[in-house]
């Protein structure tokens, strides 16, 4: 979670939990809806909500069901990020599911899509290297910074890779869920 300091991360988790328990009958809801399983990596946990059934069955047919579970793609690949995302998503999903107030069909939002994109990149670092621009910089004897500065001085360089990355999901939408096509 670049840009989010550890303290913010932790307090957000704490806040989410506090707010969660403060709601009346929340304890029962949590247990009854198998909320605790939400904290595991078991994909079945997600499918406790039947609104997740479609994604669950899509996942079982996907190319990744042997190598990645929901959380591998839908939570950041670091400890705090993971539980922050879970807290936010978990809270958000429970409220959304219970109130019934959400867009259907469910579509992934900008923030979660970023998480997922980062997940692809994290597992597929090797390949990412090959398809990102600015790659010579990495293997060059000079530091990345230097060669970029030279190029920038010449004023003919396209926007740097950080901003110009490409989306894995544009071509590989269905790796996690077969029927997303």
């Amino acid at each position, binding site marked *: 979670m670049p840009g989010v300091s550890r303290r913010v991360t932790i307090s957000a988790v704490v806040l989410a939990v506090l707010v969660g328990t403060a709601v009346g009958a929340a304890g029962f809801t949590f247990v009854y809806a198998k909320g605790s399983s939400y904290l595991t990596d078991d994909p079945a946990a997600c499918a406790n909500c039947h609104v997740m059934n479609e994604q669950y069955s899509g996942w079982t047919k996907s190319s990744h069901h042997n190598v990645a579970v929901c959380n591998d793609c839908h939570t950041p690949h670091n400890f705090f990020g993971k539980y922050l995302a879970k807290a936010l998503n978990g809270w958000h999903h429970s409220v959304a599911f219970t109130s019934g107030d959400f867009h259907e069909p469910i579509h992934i939002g900008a923030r979660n899509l970023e998480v997922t994109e980062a997940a692809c990149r994290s597992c597929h670092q090797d390949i990412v290297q090959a398809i990102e621009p600015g*790659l010579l910089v990495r293997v060059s004897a000079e530091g990345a910074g230097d060669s970029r500065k030279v190029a920038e001085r010449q004023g003919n*360089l396209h926007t740097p890779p950080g*901003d110009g990355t490409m*989306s894995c*999901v544009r071509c590989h939408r269905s790796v996690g869920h077969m029927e997303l096509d």
Partner: protein
Amino acid sequence: ALATNIFERKQEARNPFFRVVELTDDTADPAVWGKNFPIHYDMYLRTVDQVRTKYGGSEAVPRAPTQADPRSVVAQSRLEEDPRLKTMWAGYAFSKDFREERGHAYMLSDQVFTERQQVTKQPGTCIHCHASTYNAYKKLGDGDIMKGFDALNHMTYFEARKQVEHPVACIDCHDSQTMQLRVTKPAFIQAMGRMKAAQGVQDYNVNRDATRQEMRSYVCGQCHVEYYFKGPEKTLTFPWDKGLKIDNILAYYDENPHTDWKHAETGAPVLKAQHPEFEMWNQGVHARSGVSCSDCHMPYTRVGAQKISDHHVRSPLLNINKACQTCHHFSEAELRERAEALQERTFRLRNQGLDALMGLVNDVKAAKAAGKTDAELAGVYALQRRGQFMLDFIEAENSMGFHAPEEAARILGQATNLLRQAQVLVRDPSFKPEIPDMLPAAAGDAHAGPGVGGKTVGNPTGGSGASGQGQGQQQQGQGQGGPAH
């Protein structure tokens, strides 16, 4: 063994490119770049392959080399395949020699040796799209590519030819230090600038302002576009000031009167359309979904543990597996059938349009034989000019309608309407022809949309474009409905 293998793969993958030689902004020779990128270079060399598809690819036709034309293999002649084309271009160099285009490796020699060179004295302007020109620009312009561009335009073709050595090469599309894409052909830079300015985006600089995904089409848009040679300077110009749709281009030519030649059989002042792949792509649903030229014509391919862009640029129908199936989960046979069904419809409408044009040419000849004057035929000429340009636009576009099937059909339908009305008008000067309405300026154009900006097609909320890091770049131009920005 398994373990070593995986280990080797990982090594390969981690260090995909070795800097064997130092590349600079002056390294023109692709073979030198090939030292650092041997796989890319091998693929690049494979554009010599010739394989036919139903409507594309090309066929290797052997010929006896002569001193004037040493080529021992050429592509099939489109004029022999369809002699109606000779009539369409009567009086113009194209009616002497016009062949199916083939791979990039041939671009320079095919241009030098086309018989079109023998019937007309061509300007240096031709060279911009048939060679690696970046270093010539820099040399002739003392480091300023814009100046070098002008210099080349002013030469004769064979003078200009001496300034260049290679077909399009690495340096025309890539920055030598970072390998990032860049546009190096001034005609594209200028045309995009003018178009954006007309849309209210000041000071647009494609190399600064375009997203990575846009660049994956813009490098092709440097050449695969409609063009003309403007004024006595013969400046290479893309007629995009009003937009990329054919209606916009026709309006441009109305305001900037230009005639390519006088039709030899009818006498009408007509225009030649050429390879508007970029313009037509822009009207299609793929562009609208953020799918770039490179996605289909240079799809990623796994080589060992690396994944690289296939520099064997060719018909995607020769490579459906990688070119289409990443996005479309249907069988190869099914995808081919879909593409060909779209092409078949376009082909029918194209044939119908050509038949109408042949009919018209005969009618005008008969009318002239019977004593009709050019002045009396002025209305007929106007219809021929417009109708023939629209017809040629799709004939010249090399995907047989695939890049934008509905738009191709619209244009051909309207072209036939114009040409058939001209046939009525020849016979009946009191006839009042109807010219089709223009489409509104930006209707249906591709636009930033989801998928552009380096981000996914799967951004449901749209509009805000807020789904990615690419965000920062998605600026001004946005939401103004301008084409392909």
